[in-house]
């Protein structure tokens, strides 16, 4: 219970940082460690997925971007999805059904990341941004009320992707994070080495599988905590009665 409370507080900080522009602070150089549209009127951070498309279009070798992603990856990797990302928080709040769909669909996020980069290169356009549900929620809708956007074709496409994603979130817990998020795909590359990590003590485990039922990502945390789907939210550690699963931050013990 305490971990959930702490996680909600950190998620709240993620939302506050995401909307910190209401204070009048303009755009900074910081890349956001989550999916948060930089076109949002109140954003002060840069969306890594949006930026990398622009860098591909510009033909820039993205050293700053690569460096920032490695730093975020080594610190917490997909822990940012579970603890910080505002769009992940929305997924969390709408997670009513903890469906356990063990399928290769979760590789879809890597395909979307690849498609995003190839689309930017081939079409010299930020194609993903035009479909991104976070941009729908954080840019299209606010700019409609600010008199910049109109109800036109691109706006309706945004609303359609947002509606479909929200429906998916309601039907399957963490739907976007599981299957579609390209930001999650980038961070997932570092899940194996991140300082924030899960430890499983095989000898203490009774095999009750309450952790499997508790996992919002629908994985078996005992076997897949270093895999690309674990968001290190700690729901499994809270449910584990013999305390065989622990969320730790620091160097990993040699196996």
């Amino acid at each position, binding site marked *: 219970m305490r971990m959930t409370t702490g996680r909600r507080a950190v998620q709240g900080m993620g939302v506050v940082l995401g909307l910190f*522009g209401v204070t009048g602070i*303009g*755009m*900074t*150089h910081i890349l956001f460690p989550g999916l948060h*549209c*930089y*076109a949002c*009127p*109140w*954003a002060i*951070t*840069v969306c890594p997925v*949006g*930026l990398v498309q*622009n*860098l591909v*279009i*510009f*033909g*820039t*070798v*993205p*050293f*700053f*971007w*690569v*460096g920032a*992603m*490695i*730093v975020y*990856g*080594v610190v917490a990797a997909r822990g940012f999805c579970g603890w910080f990302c505002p769009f992940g928080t929305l997924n969390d709040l709408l997670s009513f059904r903890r469906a356990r769909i063990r399928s290769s669909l979760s590789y879809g996020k890597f395909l979307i990341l690849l498609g995003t980069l190839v689309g930017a290169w081939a079409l*010299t*356009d*930020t194609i993903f*941004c*035009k*479909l991104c549900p976070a*941009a729908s929620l954080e840019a*299209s809708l*606010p*700019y409609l009320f600010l*008199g*910049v*956007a*109109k109800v*036109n*074709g*691109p706006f309706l*496409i*945004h609303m359609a992707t947002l509606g479909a994603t929200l429906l998916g979130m309601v039907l399957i817990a963490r739907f976007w994070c599981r299957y579609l998020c390209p930001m999650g795909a980038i961070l997932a*590359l570092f899940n*194996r*080495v991140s300082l924030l990590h899960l430890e499983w003590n095989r000898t203490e485990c009774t095999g009750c599988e309450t952790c499997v039922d508790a996992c919002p990502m629908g994985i078996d945390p005992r076997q897949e905590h270093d*895999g*690309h789907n674990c968001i290190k939210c700690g729901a499994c550690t809270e449910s584990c009665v013999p305390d065989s699963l622990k969320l730790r931050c620091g*160097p*990993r013990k*040699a196996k």
Partner: protein
Amino acid sequence: MRQALAVLLAALGLCVFSGAVWPQEGILTFAVEPDALDVSAGGQAVARVRIVNTTAREADDIELVWAGPEGFSRDPGPASVAVLGAFASTTIELTVVVEATAPQGETRGHLEAIYTYCIDDLCYQIVAPLVLTLRVAAPTGATPDTTSDVGTPAKAEIEIPGRVPWRGVAFGVIGLLLAVAGLLWRTRHRTVLAATLVIAGGVALGLGVSLNQHKQAQAVGAVLCTSCVGIETVQTLRARLSLSQAAAVEQLTAPIELLVFYAPWCRSCPYAEELVGLVAARNPLVRYRLVNAEAERDLAVQHGVTRAGRTVVPAIVHLGTGKVLFGAEDLGNRLVSLLQEAP
């Protein structure tokens, strides 16, 4: 899965490394019209060079230089373009002067298109060779022929002045470290792997900052391009005024000043710039100035081209009424309505 990640990381390292050694490519394409120019010895003829910017960067100081053979030269008049914006195109007319002593028959004339462009603070000078076929006739009866429209695509040659060697070394170090990380991926040495990644990430961040990529990130975030995030569709067609719009513009009797805010990487901005240019060409009472929204943010704030702190492009400001048009959708009609409003 782990093998795939290892291969992906090693490939990323290779890509970063290859970014250091891969020659810089040109960003403009050139087409010479006509492909064969009929001209008489002692006379002159006009060729057109169409230049298209295929990227989101600005090309600067584009100049056409005659590179031979002897007996031919370019007219000393201007054959240059100061700035060609992202995805924009232009045509330069070039007068080829043939001396009376020039050999008759078919000759291949050589031109060099020289221009520069910058990625962050690294600037490149590109020299693109162009070929023009000249059919030289006897001194009488030859007239310029500029009707053919077959172009000759040019292949860019590369010159990269001023690259600082330590950056090349840093490129290589990052690529090497990522390749090492890729090899360590499947092993148990996770602490070594994490340390390798941290060093690679630190070097990459430092190099990115030294290349001002952090400012590029900020600039991309600080300016809202309406067509880039799906607020409207991209306008890449050539701008044109309908007959009724042109007539309405011609009927304007009071002087009007406009500011056109753009960003170099905004794909709809050339459309807005071209449309305002057409309006100004129709009625000399309409004057305008192009404003780079990234460079002149204060001016954008002063004229209300911002929304909740974001500068929005493309935007057209009517200095008389203070009204602002955002975006490029249905811009012709909206612009005419804006011009018709009395201050």
